[in-house]
């Protein structure tokens, strides 16, 4: 039998009696309920066709489907714990399976079974908090009612402990014993109460990564580790220029290698936005194995001719930015204009100016782009390392014309995303090649392709000017930013291209009475796309360094400058809704300052630096201590305080915060993507140097502020304030103000 509990307008909780007496509670699209249900006996472990979130088996085992792809963000652990807590499950009996894309056929159009399915964009936890708890709560309510019937005791006199229902007289029934009866309860209880926070057993308690054992034994499979028995392998050589054309191609030396099957040309579809089609013209070598395909690629005699983009360079783009910002030309968009900047300028007691330069960056995900695909008369089956399987679906659907229920997209754990896997050019390539060769196929990008053919983060120039009055208050803040928008060509209207580059609410907007934010668009054909932590990362670097420069101009402690700028405890409204709670911002700032002994700021031989930021509902501050011996910089200490509201998994949060801190420091210290004659000059991690163990601090001290508000996502919130805290500490220890990243190169140049 099955029944439904009201859940939301679009989706319903559904209860099914599974095979062998299991209780299954799932979430289905409302429309799906009208379709003929799959007989429960046929379901087996195939949760994806049910849309199940939780299944309780007769042996007491609990299986939970994790909805959002885990790229290292910890959602495969934290989302199931949100459900398991409401269920009062024994976490040691919980197994987690990554759910594939949940899609059903709604008269030929796709209907998403689980709502939004996205990883690494910072909203998995807020969405899960909103909708996943009900699945666990419903299962728990049904199990309690079944226990009440069997024990002859009213449900409200029973208590639950780790998957066992306990009666007042001490009689105990495990969830497994109750599952079959619970699945038959009708009608379903409504409304389903959610727990009061003081009854949480898992939420707020630390848990290690659910896949840890599989990972340390090499058993956890990534997309690249999935196999179809007879799949061939495609390795690509892309044109260095997105508008390049083939000048010379001699396939013969590649085809002469035994096991090399074919050489196929691919071209982008100019009608499609970036990320939905091939990234640049390419030649694919198809072979029986990866090793043979790589040899085939090496053997190709291949030359490309540049198109118009062949004259581009990152150096010229920076010059274009500098001259735009130095001119009187109107900005592409006036993002915000509070008060009257021009009037405030006339009252200037002191004016501070600075310009910051940040380079182009790659995603450099550990697991290179890949996709395993099989297309036959029944449909398409794909393993895709995607942060957004619904986007991957639309790429597959467009190329194959298959119906929604013929496209099966499976997700494994993913070797890093950082925004790169929100785009699906590699999926388009895999599908096109599988169609051409009519065989199951694995697409594999070697490292050099991965780094040289990315949707990069644009380099940017921030020109800041502030007016400080006689009472040391910043009364005007004028910021002019030039960059190439990540949204160009992606169906975003030209007056909204700035949204990937600056935020209307970024600090100190709302804290300075006369505030202006202008954005200038740079034109470039270098591919660009989403990057985790953007636009906060580049803007926080510039703004948090600039506040330090204001403090220096005022000859005062930068902590005092910051605290004065933040001001008294109050709510500063955000455009578009919500508000910044200044008390929470001040709190994280003071926490890191106390921990790093900020009172020694003036006397310390080592340099101390601070920065703080507000991002996606979270408050974050960094304090960093660096030492200097001749031309050697050492990051001695890093402290980070975060306030994300309620913490789901403190250990997971700490890992995300420490990890994002190290990643942001790594990105700031060394690497840059440079383009010359339209060609990316970096081809591997050797010339795109991520920080080594030795360059990074030995520990990151994370302070978590306890909270009760709805939880914010945590995956990249600690990125924005890390690099400016470092640059501010470097200034303190060396008296060299680094206004250009990567930091090490510039610091050594200025030293």
């Amino acid at each position: 039998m099955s029944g439904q509990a009201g859940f939301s307008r679009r989706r319903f909780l559904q209860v099914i009696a599974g095979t062998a007496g299991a209780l299954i509670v799932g979430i289905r699209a409302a429309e799906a309920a009208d379709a003929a249900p799959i007989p429960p006996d046929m379901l087996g472990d195939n949760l994806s066709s049910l849309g199940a979130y939780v299944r309780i088996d007769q042996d007491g085992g609990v299986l939970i489907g994790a909805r959002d792809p885990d790229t290292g963000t910890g959602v495969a652990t934290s989302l199931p714990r949100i459900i398991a807590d409401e269920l009062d499950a024994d976490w040691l009996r919980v197994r987690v399976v990554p759910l594939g894309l949940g899609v059903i056929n709604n008269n030929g159009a796709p209907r998403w079974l689980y709502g939004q399915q996205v990883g690494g964009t910072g909203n998995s936890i807020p969405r899960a908090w909103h909708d996943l708890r009900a699945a666990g709560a419903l299962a728990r309510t049904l199990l309690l009612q079944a226990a009440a019937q069997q024990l002859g005791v009213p449900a409200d006199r029973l208590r639950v402990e780790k998957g066992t229902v306990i009666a007042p007289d001490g009689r105990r029934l495990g969830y497994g014993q109750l599952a079959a009866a619970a699945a038959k309860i009708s009608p379903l209880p409504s409304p389903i109460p959610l727990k009061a926070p003081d009854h949480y057993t898992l939420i707020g308690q630390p848990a290690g990564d659910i896949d840890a054992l599989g990972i340390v034994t090499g058993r956890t499979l990534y997309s690249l580790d999935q196999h179809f028995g007879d799949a061939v392998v495609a390795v690509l050589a892309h044109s260095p220029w997105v508008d390049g054309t083939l000048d010379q191609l001699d396939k013969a030396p590649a085809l002469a290698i035994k096991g090399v099957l074919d050489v196929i040309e691919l071209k982008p579809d100019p009608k499609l936005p970036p990320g939905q089609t091939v990234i640049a013209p390419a030649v694919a070598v198809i072979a029986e194995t990866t090793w043979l395909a790589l040899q085939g690629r090496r053997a190709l005699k291949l030359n490309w001719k540049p198109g118009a983009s062949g004259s581009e360079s990152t150096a010229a783009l920076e010059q274009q930015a500098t001259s735009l910002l130095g001119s009187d030309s109107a900005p592409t968009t006036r993002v915000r204009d509070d008060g009257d900047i021009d009037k405030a300028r006339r009252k200037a007691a002191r004016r501070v100016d600075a310009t910051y330069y940040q380079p182009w960056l790659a995603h450099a995900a550990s697991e290179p782009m890949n996709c395993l695909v099989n297309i036959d008369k029944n449909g398409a089956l794909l393993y895709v390392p995607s942060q957004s399987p619904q986007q991957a679906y639309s790429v597959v659907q467009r190329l194959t014309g298959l119906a929604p229920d013929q496209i099966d997209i499976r997700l494994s754990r993913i070797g890093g995303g950082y925004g790169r896997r929100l785009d699906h050019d590699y999926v388009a390539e895999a599908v096109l090649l599988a169609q051409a060769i009519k065989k199951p196929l694995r697409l594999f990008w070697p490292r050099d392709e991965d780094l040289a053919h990315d949707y990069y983060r644009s380099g940017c120039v921030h020109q800041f000017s502030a007016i400080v009055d006689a009472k040391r208050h910043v009364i005007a803040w004028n910021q002019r930013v030039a960059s190439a928008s990540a949204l160009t060509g992606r169906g975003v209207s030209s007056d909204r291209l700035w949204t990937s580059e600056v935020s209307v609410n970024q600090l100190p907007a709302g804290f300075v009475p006369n505030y202006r934010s202008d954005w200038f668009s740079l034109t470039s054909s270098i591919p660009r796309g989403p990057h985790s932590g953007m636009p906060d990362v580049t803007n926080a670097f510039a703004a948090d360094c600039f506040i330090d420069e204001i403090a220096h101009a005022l000859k005062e402690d930068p902590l005092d400058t910051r605290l004065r700028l933040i001001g008294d405890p109050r709510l500063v409204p955000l455009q578009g809704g919500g508000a910044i709670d200044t008390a929470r911002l001040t709190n994280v700032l003071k926490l890191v300052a106390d921990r790093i002994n900020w009172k020694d700021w003036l006397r310390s031989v080592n340099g101390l630096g601070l920065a703080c930021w507000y991002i996606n509902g979270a408050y974050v501050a960094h304090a960093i201590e660096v030492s200097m011996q001749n031309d050697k910089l050492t990051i001695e200490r890093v402290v980070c305080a975060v306030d994300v509201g309620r913490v789901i998994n403190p250990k997971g949060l700490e890992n995300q915060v420490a990890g994002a801190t190290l990643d942001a420091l790594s990105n700031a210290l060394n690497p840059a993507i440079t383009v010359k004659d339209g060609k990316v000059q970096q081809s591997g991690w050797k010339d795109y140097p991520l920080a080594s163990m030795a360059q990074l601090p030995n520990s990151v001290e994370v302070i978590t502020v306890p909270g009760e508000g709805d939880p914010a996502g945590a995956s990249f919130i600690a990125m924005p304030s890390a690099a400016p805290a470092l640059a501010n500490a470097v200034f303190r220890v060396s008296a060299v103000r680094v206004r250009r990243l990567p930091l090490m190169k510039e610091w050594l140049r200025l030293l």
Partner: protein
Amino acid sequence: MAQDHAVPAQTGEITPVAIRPGIDLEINGERYRHTGDPQMPLLWYLREVLRLDGTKYAGEHGEGGSDLVLVNGKAVSSIGVPMSKLSGKQVVTVEGLADSKGKLHPLQQAFIDEDAIGCGYCTPGWLIASMDLLNRHKDPNDGDIDTLPNLCRCGCQTRVRSAIKRAAGVMKQGAKA
């Protein structure tokens, strides 16, 4: 081979089939003979022939270290070593770190206990490099740990450092007992 069976020897005797020449090596305690291209890098032998997928592709030059394996106890980039150089060698991959009964090595347990995992793609390489380090230094200090060649985009380095120290402590205790 099929032909050998199709035409049975008329004498009724079994004709011995010549042993296929190849490269004999030991991987995770088991003996293997590679009969394919001697120039094939170990990485592709592990992943595509044996489907031991724990060792991850790092880059054409092993950048980042996720393709490290132990060859005779030393960490080696598996894409950089052709099968021809492995005759008689003992190879250990991440799948071979636990003992034959599946009991985790203290280093694996320490990685779990310290949650020294981001996306996990580079973790096998960190484990192998750390094993190599612990083979050389029973009690590695921060300077020793700084020499690890691995890279990680998720920022798990501080937890790896803690895990190595934890494992060294556990192994010292184990040696005393």
